[in-house]
């Protein structure tokens, strides 16, 4: 089976990552991240003052929201290659990717919506902002399960020549642990677990960035060694 298609899809990831990095760096909401303790009026004032920047990044984010999906799709193909008894892990992985991406899009919508009509009632602007942060930071459940599925497929792989080195699986388990604190951003408005805190914000985004880089490398290697190996299609 030819792996050219997989390689093409994989190489769409670097430009996507570059665009995400650009969006991150120019997003006014992130530099520094808005504090959860702001009152509705302060939030509304912030959105009124940064309409162009927020709208610009919301539009960009909307356009590139799904651009990492090819990377995940190639991962799914490689999971289904592992010699386990079924493709149950592939299915769980694919569904998780769909849900996680949708959550990101909803976050993007909420920020865009808040900036679209900044003269809106401050209560509503603040609600949209809160909702955006909830959807952006908190829903780590699917990416955790997604990485666990991947790790499990590596651990349970019965091939004599494993598709991925074992440490990639260990790394995926580690990301699960590192991403978990973000879920607690719902509980706190200050401190390291608040949505702008080092554990929920910085750690989460750094972990994710490193994770994408490592997976990109691991997938390139796996696809290169795949050769003519048959893929069990889900």
């Amino acid at each position, binding site marked *: 089976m030819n792996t050219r298609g997989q390689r093409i899809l994989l190489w769409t990831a670097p430009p996507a990552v570059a665009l995400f990095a650009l969006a991150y760096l120019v997003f006014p909401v992130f530099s520094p991240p808005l504090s959860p303790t702001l009152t509705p009026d302060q939030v509304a004032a912030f959105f009124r003052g940064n309409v162009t920047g927020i709208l610009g990044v919301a539009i960009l984010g909307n356009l590139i929201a799904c651009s990492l999906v090819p990377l995940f799709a190639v991962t799914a193909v490689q999971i289904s290659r592992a010699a386990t008894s*079924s493709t149950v892990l592939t299915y769980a992985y694919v569904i998780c990717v769909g849900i996680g991406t949708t959550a990101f899009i909803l976050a993007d919508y909420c920020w865009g919506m808040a900036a679209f009509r900044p003269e809106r009632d401050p209560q509503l602007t*603040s*609600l949209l902002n809160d909702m955006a942060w909830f959807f952006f930071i908190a829903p780590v459940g699917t990416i955790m399960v997604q990485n666990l599925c991947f790790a499990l497929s590596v651990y349970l792989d019965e091939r004599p020549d494993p598709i991925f080195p074992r440490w990639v699986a260990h790394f995926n388990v580690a990301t699960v642990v590192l991403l978990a604190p973000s879920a607690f951003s719902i509980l706190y408005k200050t401190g390291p677990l608040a949505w702008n805190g080092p554990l929920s914000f910085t750690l989460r985004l750094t972990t994710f960035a490193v994770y994408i880089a490592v997976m990109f490398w691991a997938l390139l290697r796996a696809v290169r060694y795949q050769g003519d190996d048959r893929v069990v299609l889900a």
Partner: protein
Amino acid sequence: MSGSVAEVPKAPAPSAEHATSWRKNRKLDQWIAFWSVPFFFNLFGLVFVPLSWMMPPRSPSSSTPHIVDFMHSHNLLIACVILTLAYGLAPVSNACYLMQVKRMSVSPAFRYSMMIGAITGAIVGMLFPMFCFGLGAFRPGYNSGVLTMLYDFGYLAFIGSLGCFCVMWMAFGLAIILDENGILPKWLGYYTIWQYVTELMAAPVWIVKTGPFAWNGLMTFWFAMTLYVSWQIIVYVCIYRAIKNQPEAELDNASPELRPEAVELRSGTSA
């Protein structure tokens, strides 16, 4: 087709497995996925009922102070955190259904429909309503208008999210009924159709605020819930048996001497 499945040798009795280690179980991936499901549903039930009292649903016609009080309860936030951490297990439970549908003699279109239904359903029926409740409790400063909107949005999205689950259960039920490999019992297919029809019956929650058809009503909630919970339990027992009875030769990691038959079987089933 159905004949060739029946002739495939049965898996060795499970008692032989514990003599070696559980690690040697050929279906370990399926079992891990399967056993995460009861864990998830128990957690789901605990969080919704005794922890946050989101369920059974509060009345759509309760007074504004009551709603505001409820939306401010701190336990909603804790429930939200637990569910955000655990909601990724819902896809695993759906993957368990998909695995069995994949073994059936029906077109892949059935499992793809279910997959898409599962993706949309998890967002509109779980994550979004959860966050509606969480947001109210997160910032006590919201005025009562915003809080009642979140309350309505939360309950209506949770109970009134119909289409995605309908298409999912319709595909599941039809696949069971049309299947000729006998993976899951036929009556389960019909049971699934009732479950899907009662899902349709939740439509009136968008119209009335009191009585048996409101979102906490006898017909739309309690009756549908009874049918749903019993269905869910029965489905899992059936899935358990289906995984257990799957012949070794049919597994993707079957040993090479059993393999040719398995390949033939597969190409026959995924037309």
